[in-house]
């Protein structure tokens, strides 16, 4: 095996060396990409061009895309996410989404589903369903992420041999239900009786906002030991000690999985910590960017420099450019003119909103290249720096 990967690696290195020398491109695929796109629009050398089979409405503000991934796509584990890339007005836009269907379902049908909440101010999520209505094309990355049940060995293609053995508590908020739906569908389709209890506490702000309600109810009937609680926050309030005791009083011995909007995750972790739950028992995944409001969303925004692990907060009353903020934090990003001309300070923004003081425009929430020297953070920003 290792010899094999080694020869593959060497071959890859040699090929890319030749490609660089002959074409000035990173690979021959990249060199030919524009020509290939002539025949396969939106084809990308580094992505898996896949077709959208259906767009299904789930609720007022939520829909699912049913996608048939390209043959080279390697499959996934329940709970993982993918990066979805589409072309919008000439620009590639990418967003991360959890896969909401199970590996078992993918095995049987060749399809996956991702469920997307429409962001009011977003430029992508409201636009996608129309753009993809009649058999659109999207690009997928391989599946990524570690938010999977600890002993789930269910990579698609391999049937789960070890059923869930530890008791589990799942806490979902809003669209954070998607990875859990994948896990629960997997359990139910495999027809496995879970040997230890699995309990789901699912929060939404009104009865209409519970997604996959029927499916979840069905799983509950099919899988002994599985309990699903739909908790309407309007009536019953947010996750609290009282809820824990009411819906899952043996939480302390369980593996706990949390997925939802960031404030909810922070809050849930705090409650659990106060209950002396062990850190290692708690698994969580932040789901999607926060809805953005440009004004009045607090006085400060925070900037996370991802690669160096540094974080700073900035006061909105005296805006500072991201370049200054980075330099204040002892980072040394490449820069030149500092007036937005030379493009040397370009950096990839992973998420968050920035204001470009030169073009006087706000960015979108997703991943894109920005000029540090003329960009000011408006909402919490994550930078690849």
């Amino acid at each position, binding site marked *: 095996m290792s010899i094999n990967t080694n020869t593959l690696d060497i071959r890859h290195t040699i090929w890319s060396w030749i490609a660089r020398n*002959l074409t000035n491109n990173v690979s021959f695929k990249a060199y030919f*990409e524009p020509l290939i796109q002539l025949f396969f629009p939106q084809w990308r050398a580094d992505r898996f061009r896949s077709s959208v089979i259906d767009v299904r409405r789930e609720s007022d503000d939520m829909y699912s895309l049913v996608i048939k991934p390209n043959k080279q796509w390697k499959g996934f584990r329940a709970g993982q996410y993918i990066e979805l890339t589409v072309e919008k*007005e000439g620009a590639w836009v990418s967003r991360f989404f959890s896969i909401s269907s199970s590996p078992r379902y993918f095995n049987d049908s060749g399809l996956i589903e991702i469920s997307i909440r429409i962001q009011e101010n977003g430029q992508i999520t409201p636009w996608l369903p129309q753009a993809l209505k009649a058999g659109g094309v999207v690009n997928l990355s391989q599946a990524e992420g570690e938010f999977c049940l600890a002993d789930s060995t269910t990579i698609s293609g391999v049937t789960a041999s070890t059923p869930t053995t530890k008791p589990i508590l799942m806490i979902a908020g809003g669209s954070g239900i998607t990875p859990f739906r994948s896990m629960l569908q997997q359990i139910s389709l495999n027809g496995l009786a879970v040997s230890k209890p699995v309990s789901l506490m699912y929060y939404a702000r009104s009865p209409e906002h519970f997604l996959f309600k029927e499916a979840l109810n069905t799983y509950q009937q099919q899988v002994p030991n599985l309990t699903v609680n739909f908790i309407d926050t309007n009536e019953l309030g947010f996750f609290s000690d009282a809820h824990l005791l009411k819906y899952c009083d043996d939480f302390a011995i369980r593996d706990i999985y949390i997925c939802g909007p960031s404030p909810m995750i922070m809050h849930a972790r705090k409650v659990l910590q106060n209950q002396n739950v062990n850190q290692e028992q708690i698994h969580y995944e932040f789901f999607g960017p926060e809805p953005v409001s440009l004004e009045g969303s607090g006085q400060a925004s925070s900037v996370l420099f991802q690669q160096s692990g540094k974080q700073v907060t900035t006061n909105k009353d005296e805006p500072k450019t991201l370049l200054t903020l980075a330099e204040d934090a002892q980072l040394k990003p490449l820069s030149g003119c500092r007036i937005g*001309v030379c493009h*040397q300070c370009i950096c990839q923004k992973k998420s968050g909103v920035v204001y470009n003081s030169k*073009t006087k425009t706000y960015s979108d929430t997703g991943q*894109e290249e920005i000029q540090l020297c003329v960009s000011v953070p408006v909402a919490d920003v994550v930078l690849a720096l």
Partner: protein
Amino acid sequence: MSAASNNARPDSATLELFAQDLDQIRSNTMAKVGQKDANYIRNVIRVQRVSEIGGRVALVLGFISPVWWVVGVLLLAFAKILDNMEIGHNVMHGQYDWMNDPNINGRNFEWDHAADSDSWRRYHNHEHHTYTNIIGKDRDFGYGLLRLSDDTSWRPKNRWQILTYLNLSAMFELGVAYHEVAGERIFMGKRRKTSSLPITRKELRNAFFSKAGRQFFKDYVFFPLLCFPMFLPVLAGNFLANILRNLWTSTVIFCGHFTEEVHTFSIEDCENETQGEWYYRQILGSSNFEGRRWLHILSGHLSCQIEHHLFPDVPAYHYVEMGKQVQAVCKKYDIPYNTGSFGKQYLTVVKRVLKYSFPSKIEAASV
């Protein structure tokens, strides 16, 4: 500021209004940028790929008839010109960064050219575009080889600088590659005391050799060997294609910055510069030439050097349209706008090179 004409700089209130008008042109144009531009640049890249591959194949077919060889040279030169001008230069200015396409991206792009693109981004995008025509700051003014204004004193070697110019033109690619290395005195001359270089001198040297070496390997070793029996014709064809590209790019660039009316500036001119003053300097430091669309495309729209200097990161295809609006704004504020036919502009370049081959009258008197 020194200039051939004697327009005085408008006052700051005027320049403020002037800047607002130009900003408006920019944002009106940016509002239109989208799918059409993406399709356009992808199509140009397609044409480039097809001509490059076609050109290399045609060179080999030279054994059937020399006509094929000639076609091959022309196609290859054409592909290189497209790659360097309409694609490379513009992409590396970040004009297509909004596409989020890793292969059409300002930071990653590498061109079919001896100059390492990172080095070029540093001194061209930063130095030349920020300090346009400021003597002592913009090393592109005369490239340290030519005397093109009275700001530098005359030296005997300037007497035959027209030959230096022709030489530089033919080897322009190497001149561009060597430019930063020369400016940093990597191989010759007294080492600079202060350098803003973000990489070490060694890294700069390595980048220089590795990029130039790669280009050399490709055009003068790999492809000639690949077509072994045709080794010499292919080698000669590649060489000629490179020279043709060099002559063309050099000519375009000289027409954009060294025509008769182009102004020069001193460091004081750019201290605490307002946006309006910056725009004003960019306009006075550049010149356009007119022509048909194909001429604009072949010159990477540097035929609209003025617009390029005002808006370096706006997709260049829009410059022709913007040019009309910019010219109207200049007229409104009585600011000179330097344009003319390609032939006329080129003649004034030659005139300028010749004119400063000789000492100025004051200098001549004191000699």
